[in-house]
């Protein structure tokens, strides 16, 4: 999802960079206030860890392979603010040293993969974990897996919005393309996230800092991130959400309901990409999204139930040092 240069126009790039700067600013403040000096080197090591983990090839199907992005994983292991900083650094190095992601697009990439992915994933992780009735380690694995999927999808939607706002790709195309593809890619990400969290829980459960009350550096940042996420998505996605009435209208028509002409407040985006049976790709994606979310939720639950019994009784005594 690293956007290269040349796809975003100046205005979108600036807005995204501003949003990214805001998020990183919040993270910096949180980290400065609550990170102990003892944990400072961990940020650097975690960034190296994410990079190293991204280099591993996960076989997917028929010779293709995928890679773990690790944004939500980092948030679960270190807490949201540390994770934002870590992912930002990873993205910076990928841009500056490997030409992976454009320099002007760095702000957008940081916002999508460093903030939307990380923070929304973290929120979903904490919310799911506290709402579900399950043994603690199972709940953690389940929530991490689901959050991994969710963060990936939401980040891709943000990315689609930026492409559409730049008028590079019309929303009615960008949104279905990005969202649908990442709903599938997200499965791998969620699965890998859940499995890694499980592996860490098995050996050093106290290292899963994101599961604890404070994380590595949490707190008031919650509100800040929430606000920023809402703002960002409002800027990048909301202008196109007006497509929804059209999409829903198309669905209503296809299903035979009489439809009152509901003129959208904004003219419909160009390239009315029509699909058979369903009014538009946008609506189809929206429906797929809802179904996908439910499916991902159930799958993550099943994963946790199936795999996590091996943890058995939680290790009450931590390993002693030699």
């Amino acid at each position, binding site marked *: 999802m690293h956007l290269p240069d040349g796809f975003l126009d100046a205005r979108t790039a600036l807005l995204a960079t501003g949003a990214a700067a805001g998020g990183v600013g919040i993270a910096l403040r949180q980290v400065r206030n609550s990170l102990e000096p003892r944990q400072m080197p961990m940020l650097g090591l975690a960034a190296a860890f994410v990079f190293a983990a991204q280099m591993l090839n996960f076989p997917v199907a028929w010779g293709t392979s995928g890679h773990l992005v690790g944004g939500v994983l980092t948030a679960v292991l270190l807490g949201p603010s540390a994770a934002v900083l870590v992912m930002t650094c990873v993205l910076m190095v990928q841009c500056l040293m490997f030409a992976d992601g454009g320099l002007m697009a760095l702000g957008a990439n940081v916002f999508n993969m460093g903030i939307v992915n990380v923070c929304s994933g973290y929120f979903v992780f904490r919310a799911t974990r506290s709402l579900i009735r399950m043994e603690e380690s199972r709940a953690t694995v389940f929530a991490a897996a689901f959050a991994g999927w969710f963060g990936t999808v939401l980040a891709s939607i943000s990315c689609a919005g930026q492409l559409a706002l730049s008028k590079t790709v019309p929303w009615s195309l960008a949104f279905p393309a990005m969202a649908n593809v990442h709903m599938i890619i997200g499965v791998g990400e969620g699965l890998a996230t859940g499995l890694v969290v499980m592996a860490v829980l098995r050996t050093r459960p106290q290292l899963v800092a994101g599961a604890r009350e404070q994380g590595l550096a949490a707190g008031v940042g919650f509100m800040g991130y929430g606000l920023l996420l809402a703002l960002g998505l409002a800027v990048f996605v909301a202008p196109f959400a007006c497509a929804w009435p059209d999409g829903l209208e198309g669905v209503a028509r296809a299903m035979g309901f009489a439809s009152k002409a509901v003129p959208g407040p904004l003219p419909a985006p160009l390239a009315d990409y029509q699909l058979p049976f369903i009014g538009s790709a946008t609506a189809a994606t929206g429906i797929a999204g809802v179904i996908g979310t439910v499916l991902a939720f159930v799958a993550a639950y099943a994963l946790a139930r199936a795999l996590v019994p091996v943890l058995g009784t939680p290790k009450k*005594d*931590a390993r*002693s*040092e*030699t």
Partner: protein
Amino acid sequence: MSTAVEVRQLSYGYPQMPSGLALDRLSFTVAENECIAVLGPNGAGKSTLLLHLNGLLPEHPPREPNIWIAGQPLTAKTLDTVRQRVGLLFQDPDDQLISATVFEDVSFGPRQMGRDGLPLRELVEQSLGLVGLRGFEDREPHRLSHGEKRRVCLAGVLACQPTVLVLDEPTSDLDPRGRREFKHLLQSLPGAKIIATHDLELVVDLCSRVLILDEGKLVAEGQTVPLLSNETLMLAHGLEKPHSLLHRHPHG
């Protein structure tokens, strides 16, 4: 000879270890310019002891000092000055070599002490010269061999100008030539040295006295050759008689 290091009734229990102590009432002294070895099986508490000598453990310095460096007690107030006097070389050079270049890393310690500019450069050059790595200032850590990394770490420690050198397994995973070179290097350095190691040949060559730790207790202390020749004692504490003493042939 004055005492470089004095330890009296030092005890320590790791917080996560509910039962048993990592160190149990240790007491010993090290004279100026003396080189002693700390031996013992894994888990005996060697590394824990070394961390205490640098003031890294316990997390909060005790009210009543257990450690004196050059006569000065190690307390919360004196922690910084005493820490500077004791140079600790960690077992894994990758844990200690953190900077982007050799120069930056060797200058890390002096910079914390406020050195800057030309004196700093000269200090770094001098320290690198002491370990035989003159001209290595601009090299990057991941391009160095294991032995070179270890020597850079030693240079970084020497740059802080300590009076006591404490080394944690300095010859572990070095090849035979690397071990020989490091041994000669240590021999050339003045000052008191405390070496925790499994390398018994090194001990025979370098150290005049030996402490044997087992389960946190000091179980034996004495001159190197007599102590290490005591096969029963050595085997009882997870060690063995070094080969050089088995056949009574000194190694070069």
